[in-house]
């Protein structure tokens, strides 16, 4: 049984069938990639996992429990963290604070009444956040305001915010989009490295085929809201359906 089991998920936006009977079986400790052309419904699918959208029909089971109907913070507390496609960060706060917040939420739970505690005494959380920033290569920028970061740095910060929670399941929505080539490679290495040492299950949405084929244990190809193939990377490349629908089609 997979850590995340998605069955017959449908989602309509008016006349648009954004998700069409989607099934997904993500194995624990593995990297599951979702690829597909722009507008295929990849982000919409992740939205159904984290409580941003409610599917019209279907089930989403995480560790044997349904995620549907839970609030976003409950889903996160259950161990699912998401790295957003368009950076969603705390722009007015420092880079370090941006990472300490998810770390605190992970340690203290959804709410902790501690107005009398001091951030100065949170050495453990600070160390953890600083280490994570080091991992993504942003340690020297930790005291800068998040809004002053470049687009690529914001993506890396997003990644750190997800990683610092050591989730059971990490949802990565195009984590390398907008990054320079060198940063992309670093990010791939980082994701591989984390996969090995911490055993975090990952769902990664990615456009860059190189990234996908070097990371993924399994790939689902989503086209117009429908999973046309789910298979191992080596079988995906040669699959005629995929070639026709995606790889052979318009290059973006």
């Amino acid at each position: 049984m997979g850590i995340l089991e998605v069955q017959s998920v449908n989602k309509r936006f008016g006349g648009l069938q954004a998700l069409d009977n989607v099934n997904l079986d993500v194995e624990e400790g593995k990297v599951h990639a979702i690829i597909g052309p722009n507008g295929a419904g990849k982000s919409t699918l992740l939205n159904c996992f984290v409580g941003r959208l409610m599917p019209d029909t279907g089930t989403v089971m995480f560790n044997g429990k349904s995620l549907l109907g839970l609030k976003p913070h409950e889903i996160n507390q259950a161990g699912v963290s998401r790295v957003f496609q368009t950076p969603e960060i705390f722009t007015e706060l420092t880079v370090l604070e941006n990472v300490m917040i998810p770390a605190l939420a992970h340690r203290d739970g959804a709410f902790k009444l501690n107005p009398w505690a001091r951030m100065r005494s949170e050495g453990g959380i600070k160390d953890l956040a600083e280490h994570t920033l080091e991992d993504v290569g942003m340690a020297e920028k930790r005291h800068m305001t998040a809004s002053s970061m470049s687009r690529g740095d914001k993506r890396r910060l997003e990644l750190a915010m997800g990683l610092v929670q050591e989730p059971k399941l990490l949802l990565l929505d195009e984590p390398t989009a907008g990054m320079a080539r060198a940063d992309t490679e670093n990010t791939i290495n980082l994701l591989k490295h984390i996969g090995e040492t911490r055993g975090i299950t990952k769902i990664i949405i990615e456009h860059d085929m190189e990234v996908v084929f070097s990371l993924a244990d399994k790939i689902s190809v989503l086209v117009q809201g429908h999973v046309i193939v789910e298979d191992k990377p080596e079988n995906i490349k040669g699959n005629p359906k995929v070639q026709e629908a995606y790889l052979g089609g318009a290059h973006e």
Partner: protein
Amino acid sequence: MFGLDTKDTRLFFFVAVLVAFAPFLMNPFPTESGLAQFNGGYPDLMQRFVIFGIFAIGFNILFGLTGYLSFGHAAFLGTGSYAAVWMLKLLTINVIPAIVISTLVAGVMALAIGFISLRRSGIYFSILTLAFAQMAFALAASVLTPITGGETGLQTALNDPRILDFRAEGGNIPAPSLFGLEMRASYEWLVGGWSFTFNVGYYISGLFMLAALYVAIRIFRSPFGLMLKAIKTNQNRLNYTGVSTRPYTLTAFVISGMYAGLAGGLMAAMDPLAGAERMQWTASGEVVLMTILGGAGTLLGPILGAGFIKYFENIFSKINDSILHSWFSFLPEGLENVMVTILHPFVGKGWHLTLGILFMLVVIFLPGGLMEGMQRIGKMFSRKKKSDETDGKATVPAE
């Protein structure tokens, strides 16, 4: 010190010194000089500085940290005042129970109003708080007259029960006191042409303001405070980060409501009188102005803003045409009249015009309020200093 870092300790002592020496600082002009009307060092006004300082510090914990703009905080101020007067009537003329109860009652009320209002954010939240406050105002002025004294207001009377006090026959209505030390008691010190007034009520309120500031600093520097700041920048993201934001905003709302209740209680302790007008929407708007004018989200800003507005309200509103004439009497008669006519709309009853213009100037040119202005001046000085020093050492940015 006291669990604060060096910078915050310095800030705290800076405010403590200001509070302690305000009777001097606010009375810089000799009593007989023409500028004496700019002296703000009389007990009534100084009490208002620190009491509204408390109100604004508390408001800033909600608005400055979380960004939730309440337009109904005067409801808690007014409720605090009513609760305090009732304690002075029923329990004892000692101000301590009055102040404690007013804070608690306002806290309970904030819990109820916040619980409902915080279901919405942005303008809808503001409107909900405004609606609640106007409801409270209307009730206090009419239906609840047996409790609030209606239009005339609530005050202490000679035949109040005051079950904890020993009662002498006859005499006057007792004045609120702290174990016998009357709030209205003052010591006046005359030196040269100057006169300085040291008032018991002012110093007691001042101590409460320092305590209120200390608590605010602790909240600002706590993980709880960091979550509140995160709510202001991106509440949505915080939800996806595993944080349930509603309990955080509700706690901030209750804390700021308690600050307002404390301020209302102190007002009643200084002058045992409470009226519905304290709950009116203009009073709610005033604390918004104070906080924004001084600098929302800063520790010192709300205190500055409160002092600034209360000073203007009391000093500018007292300048009348005859005072203006006396200022410009050195000019030829025609010119004197022209000057008085020009300035007339800005003083006396027109002080709101002056305040409005100042507020607009601050918001347009100093979006961070007076605090931003002070920081800019500070930077100008430090830049001058730096260019004076010839060694090229890199300065480490302060935390």
